[in-house]
């Protein structure tokens, strides 16, 4: 606890006020710790703006959300009409609504880019594992938030999207049907579902999201930011204990981020005012038809940000199960033959493989599709322990690692695109190959990330003055 600090009676009113506050709340100390004396590496590139942009979009979503809730009616009979009321009769309601709907998509754009930055520069490696884990938690909460928010306009896609996704839970053996019932609060998606999703969307999940964001930033400021070179700037400090390659976050990165925010807002508002539907990707055309429980749309597609994971779900068919079983057998055989470990471990692996195979044979492929979709997200949590590369940053990895990352990005985009389309024989096959690659990329990472000729990592960051 800080000493009570007396200030000269001749000090300015501002200094007196600040002193009064600082004696009761660590305002200056917090500002120093997180802004003016928080040293960030000076070699950040454009990839480093997406964190602050995520924060900006979060604020946009909360503020616009507050105003939408003032006019929205969470009632199956009134919800669709209340959204149109906001679009037509509430002054500037259309702008608030378009900001919120565009904000949902923008959130995923900046978060996906933010995560990819982490992947490229190894930002999840020691000692930043918890930063990454909190971040993955944010991503998961964001998906829940977006999914439940999408039901609220009560259009056909809202309704049937929720119906399809909640029904997935009923594929879980034993507890599935009851779990789905618990989520819906009814036997089909209905008024009860709308009310609980509304409650989760405006209170529960945002609280979790905010808590995780605070934890993410506290953890980050504790360990300090990574950088495109993957060099620990804290390893080289000057006489005052300040990292030689560090620069105070404020004012250097605050002015940097204000510029990034201006450019982002330019793109964001261009969409809000000129293309709020974004060709049916941000606002699906079918969602302008009120929800009708008796009329299933021909093609039910989730919004674009869920489609890569939706593709993983659809890819797991009875056919693909045989391929997956072959993979399990191969993995078990390899670890038994090649692995150097005690006989007990080998017995556990062999026994485990037999149990998994038995489950794969006895439980419907639909369930394994759900496992693939969930696993596609959950596997991200393990990244810090899957990556065995001796260097953090992609810059000092073998060239073929870069190509491999590029293929992963293309694979993710293809899965995302295919997830928006109705299933067809050719595209389903492509999605299956894409799914296998997606999981191979992560599950085989402990092996491939060690291989190749790594380049020497410099002791200082590479920086050229602008």
């Amino acid at each position: 606890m800080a000493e009570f600090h007396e200030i000269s009676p001749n000090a300015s009113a501002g200094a007196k006020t600040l002193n009064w506050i600082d004696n009761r709340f660590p305002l200056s100390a917090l500002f120093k710790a997180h802004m003016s004396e928080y040293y960030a590496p000076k070699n950040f590139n454009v990839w480093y703006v997406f964190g602050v942009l995520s924060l900006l979009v979060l604020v946009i979503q909360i503020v616009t959300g507050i105003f939408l809730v003032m006019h929205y009616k969470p009632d199956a009979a009134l919800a669709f009409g209340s959204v149109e009321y906001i679009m037509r009769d509430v002054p500037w309601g259309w702008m608030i609504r378009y900001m919120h709907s565009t904000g949902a998509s923008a959130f995923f754009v900046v978060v996906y880019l933010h995560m990819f930055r982490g992947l490229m520069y190894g930002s999840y490696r020691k000692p930043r594992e918890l930063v990454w884990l909190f971040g993955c938690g944010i991503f998961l909460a964001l998906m829940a938030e977006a999914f439940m928010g999408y039901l609220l306009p009560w259009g056909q896609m809202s309704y049937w999207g929720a119906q399809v996704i909640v029904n997935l839970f009923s594929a879980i053996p034993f507890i599935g049907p009851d779990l789905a019932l618990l989520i819906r609060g009814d036997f089909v998606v209905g008024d009860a579902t709308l009310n609980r999703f509304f409650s989760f969307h405006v209170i529960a999940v945002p609280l979790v999201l905010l808590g995780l964001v605070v934890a993410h930033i506290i953890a980050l400021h504790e360990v300090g930011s990574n950088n495109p070179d993957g060099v620990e700037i804290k390893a080289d400090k000057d006489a005052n204990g300040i990292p030689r390659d560090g620069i105070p976050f404020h004012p250097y990165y605050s002015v940097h981020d204000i510029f990034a925010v201006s450019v982002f807002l330019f793109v964001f508002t261009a969409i809000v005012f000129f293309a709020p539907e974004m060709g049916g990707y941000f606002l699906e055309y079918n969602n302008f038809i009120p929800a009708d429980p008796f009329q299933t749309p021909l093609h039910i597609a989730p919004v674009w940000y869920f489609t890569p994971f939706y593709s993983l779900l659809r890819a797991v068919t009875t056919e693909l199960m045989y391929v997956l079983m072959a993979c399990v057998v191969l993995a078990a055989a390899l670890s038994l033959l090649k692995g150097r470990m005690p006989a007990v471990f080998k017995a556990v692996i062999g026994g485990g493989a037999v149990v998994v195979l038995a489950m794969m044979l006895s439980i419907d492929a639909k369930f394994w599709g759900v496992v693939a979709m969930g696993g596609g997200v959950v596997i991200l949590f393990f990244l810090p322990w899957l990556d065995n590369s001796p260097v953090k940053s992609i810059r000092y990895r073998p060239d073929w690692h870069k190509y491999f990352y590029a293929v992963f990005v293309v694979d993710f985009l293809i899965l995302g695109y295919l997830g928006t389309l109705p299933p067809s024989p050719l595209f389903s096959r492509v999605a299956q190959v894409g799914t296998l690659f997606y999981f191979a990329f992560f599950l085989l990472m402990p092996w491939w990330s060690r291989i190749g000729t790594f380049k020497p990592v410099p002791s200082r960051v590479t920086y050229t003055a602008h």
Partner: protein
Amino acid sequence: MTTMGLTKKILSSVLLACALGTSALANVGGPAWDKAPNRINDMGALQNGAKLFVNYCLNCHSAAFMRYTRLTDLGLTQEQIKSNLLLTDAKIGETMKAAIDPKQAKAWFGNTPPDLTVIARSRAGANGTGADYLYTYMRTFYRDEAKQTGWNNLVFPNVAMPHALWELQGSRRAVFEEVEVHGQKVHEFKGFEQITPGTMTPAQYDSAVADLVNYMQWMAEPVQTSRKTVGVWVLAFLALLSVLTWKLNKAYWKDVR
């Protein structure tokens, strides 16, 4: 390879994926839609469309989120709306209800006629805008004695709605020809034949439908023209702000070595 190289590589992959995407989108089927003339800024056309809408559509359909007063956005006065466009006993501040009782409508047509407020937004798709769909739909009704209503439609086969504008267009029959495609016999549409003339020439009819669908496009989002006007100012401001913040950023970073 530097990070810029990687960024470029990823960008080119994204572009490639987009290129693949558009070519795949082009394959999404259904009969082609005619392009509706764009008259969204033509107040005369929109007013004429509104007149057609209240006269022909509102008998059976509602536009339950569209207030009559909003028609003032089309340059009409409250008096003009009251005397020319308010055909039911509704007040001018109320929304557009159907003249027909929805229960009767369901009994007659087998379906409750859908609300039309945002129909133009909901019908957009890979083949074109919602206006394109409606423009094609209202111009491809034909006589079909096999149907209960006596009418059928090219883009909406077995449609429950009879041709509401038949007096204007007259009645036509569709000529189909049996052709072989990939070894399968299919009926290919060859063209329409006029049976009885309407009160309008085909060109007049097309123009009237264009006015109607432009009105429906406008009604689906009355703010669509003014939001673009606001957008220009907002973008101009943000462009200026970006320049200033870029200068600010540069000023701070110029001494960092």
